[in-house]
């Protein structure tokens, strides 16, 4: 058995300290150690994008990182956006535009879009499609996701 390593990480504004196996994936750490199960795992090889979280405000695939790499960094997961009672404007837009069906890929798509809309507050359709082209969704055909992003862009600007 390998030695355990200390990890100190801020997740959704809250500080956590854990001793972890060095090979523990960041996705497994978030889901099973911290119990933030909103981050989903679809492929474990960095293609589907379902496990996307913000790492120092940049979107990363948490299945391609080890938990120990997060030591001293800040992570935001889908649980760090809105609550059921008060959704984030992006979440609201997804609900209004029917931008989700089974909802499995949705957290990863939301976490991809948060920094995208910050850097590009008024994207056109092709920019939106490009932004989510690294996130697979099998249910929606993407059209209502695109609509949701347009709606969110309006909401976030007003």
């Amino acid at each position, binding site marked *: *058995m390998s030695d355990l390593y200390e990890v100190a990480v801020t997740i959704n504004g809250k500080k956590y300290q854990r001793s972890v*196996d060095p*090979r*523990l994936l960041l996705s*497994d750490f978030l*889901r*099973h150690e911290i*119990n*933030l*199960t*909103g*981050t*989903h*795992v*679809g*492929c*474990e*090889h960095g*293609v*589907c994008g*379902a496990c996307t979280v913000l790492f120092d405000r940049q979107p990363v695939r948490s299945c391609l990182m080890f938990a120990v790499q997060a030591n001293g960094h800040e992570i935001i*997961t*889908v*649980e760090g*956006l*809105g*609550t*059921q009672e008060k*959704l984030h404007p992006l*979440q609201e837009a*997804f*609900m209004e535009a*029917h931008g*989700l*069906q*089974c*909802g*499995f*890929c*949705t*957290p990863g798509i*939301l976490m991809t879009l948060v920094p995208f809309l910050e850097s590009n507050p008024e994207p056109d359709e092709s920019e*939106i*499609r*490009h932004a*989510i*082209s*690294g*996130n*697979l*969704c*099998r*249910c*929606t*055909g*993407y*059209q*209502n*996701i*695109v609509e949701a992003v347009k709606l969110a862009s309006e909401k976030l600007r007003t």
Partner: protein
Amino acid sequence: MPKIIGERIKRNEDPRLLTGEALFVDDVSIPGMLHAAFLRSDYAHAYLRSIDTSAARERPGVVAVITAQDMGDEWQPGPPLVSPPPTVKGVVFHSRPQVPLVKDKVRHAGEAIALVVAESRYIAEDAVEDILVDLDPIDAVVDIEKALHPDAPLVHEDLESNLAAHLIQQRGDYAAARARADVVIKRKIVIDRGAAGAMENRGIVADWDAKSQHLTVWDTTQAPIPIRNGIATRLGLSESQVRVIAPFIGGGFGPKMMMHYPEEILIPWIAVKLGRPVKWIEDRHENFFATTQERTQVHEAEIALTKDGRVLGVSHNFLHDSGAYDPYGLTIPLNTQSHVMGAYDVPNYYSDLKVVFTNKTLTTPIRGAGRPQGIFVIERLLDIAAKELGIDPVEIRMRNFIHPDAFPYQREIIDQAFAPLILDSGNYKPVLEKAATMIGYDRFVKEEGPRLRAEGRHVGIGLVSFIETTGVGPYEGARITVEASGKIRVATGVGTQGQGHFTSFAQIVAEQLGVGVEDVHVSTGDTSEFHWGTGTFASRGAVVAGNAIHASALAVRYKILKLASKVLEAPEEELELEDGQVRVADIPNMSISLGELALLANPLRGAVEPGTEPGLEATAYFGPQYGAAAFGVHAMILEVDPETMMVEIKRYVVVEDCGTILNPMILEGQIHGGVAMGIGNAFYERLVFDENGQLLNASLADYLIPTASEVPRIEVGHEETRSPLNPLGTKGAGEAGTIPVPALFAQALENALPDLNLEILEMPLSPNRLFELVQEKERDK
């Protein structure tokens, strides 16, 4: 009564899903929970000579290692899911259901050989690597056309050949029709395999409580009730001792309907044996081998027509790939037969089906389920006939549509329900006309197409029609309860995988009981809430469960009115249900809330009339006489880049007639997603097996699911021909988006490359394959 059915109502389930608070199977965590991993075969076809699990057992943290030998008498194949065979004369069916763990011979790559249970998934996977297994590989059966060759290796050596089933269906006299035809067109059509590719892989958590003698299982299944019944039977428990929960499921698309996957028996079994909770979550690599696949068929198909393009008959001999086992019976190829006559009045039909075993992953229905193959065959044959006869492709379809007066229309063959196939209702021409108008068919053919081609662009248009047999029985049920809070609880047995059941079902109830959709709480897929039913498959949720919920809502409404009439001292016909209240019409201050009525219906003291049932609650069931047939037309304009053979879809139009629409927002979402999957089936997604039965592209980096860059904007139109078979008038639509896309792609590609006289007779294509087809044609020129 305010109209709620048919409205675009936002989904009740979304806040939970959007905040990451919805429970998926892998989110279940129980103290003391163990984790499972499987040793799977690297070979597709091999004898299992020996297994040495000693090193794995000794690894710290490993709790159990199980092989077929270790299971003793509890090792049993099956059970089969769909009992063979249908009552057709001369049918042959060899039932060879899947096995829990390989005992003596591996029959497909990825078949499970051993189960490891450990304190963590990481340790379990390490221990899988510790197992020494001696596999002796033999030649594999891969190509279905070679499977029946006398020299082919045998997948099941107790059979004389790899023939799994043989079935002939016919209507009229095709040979006679052929003899008097002006034109007969014959082609070979080849369709290959794809994956369902749900974003959530499969998973199971089983928790046995020895003190209460109760087993709880969370399973990514589309059919929790049959899974519960099967687990109870296998483990020798009573059904009431087993609770199966299908919580939020990250996409189903068919393969989560397979019953029972070996893991669905093994994980509960080992959890009971060990007396500890056990979790198994499939990884994506396993998903490519261990989750069922679909589509492979080879057709020798023929169509006979008059010179004015009237179809006299269709005939086809076809092979269907069952994979290594056949627990799902003949559902897929029966669906193919049900769709080879398309939306057309075909008086003569002959179909010879041979199902073969191969050394590949099992096939079971995936969104479309045999229908895309059938529609591809008929639409391709019609396109080729239209070209040969000089008739416009739209016109030849119009000439052959089943006439609206001909419904209910007898197909005179049997379908997947093993019953005569009857198309209940339809009015096809207006749907086609609407699609042609939306895409601007005439303008494109006359002006836009020629103009763009003159500019040197390779632009093409396509328009195809399809039927979808939906909403098959046997039945579903629902229980509806008005609670003292005034909120409504609905429980039904079907599972849900993103179809919006928490909302569309709530709409059905809200309309009858005069409450807000957000006040109707729907529970699906939990056997402790409702334990009669079959599952979510065959586009039947809205039809079968939807109408059960409707019937149950009517029964509750009746109880509400009866009690309110007594309390308010007003005749029932003067009462209105609105805003959670029962009111006397025109006297707004004479009212009572549903919550207060619910309390009155469940008194703590006092006498009740004999025969009274407590509460405002009712359970009702619905079983359709036969399935409801939906219809639709898809049209598209695409452009081919002659350098790269990449295709850009410029316009995509869908007009769908699935009867009464419950929620157009949800319906359109289903169509968008279906089309996206169809685009994958047509141009991107192919599971590539080598001659040894090895899957060469078992990752999402190599198996290409369409992204937002490949899927175009989809314009959706609706027609509503109500089904006469159910009170809501609904027909299913879950699979409709997928079914006609390959046929449409083929037609539009041929249209875009007119000089080549291309004939596309295979699916899926890819830019590479299209390049090869074009090269072949250019060489021939």
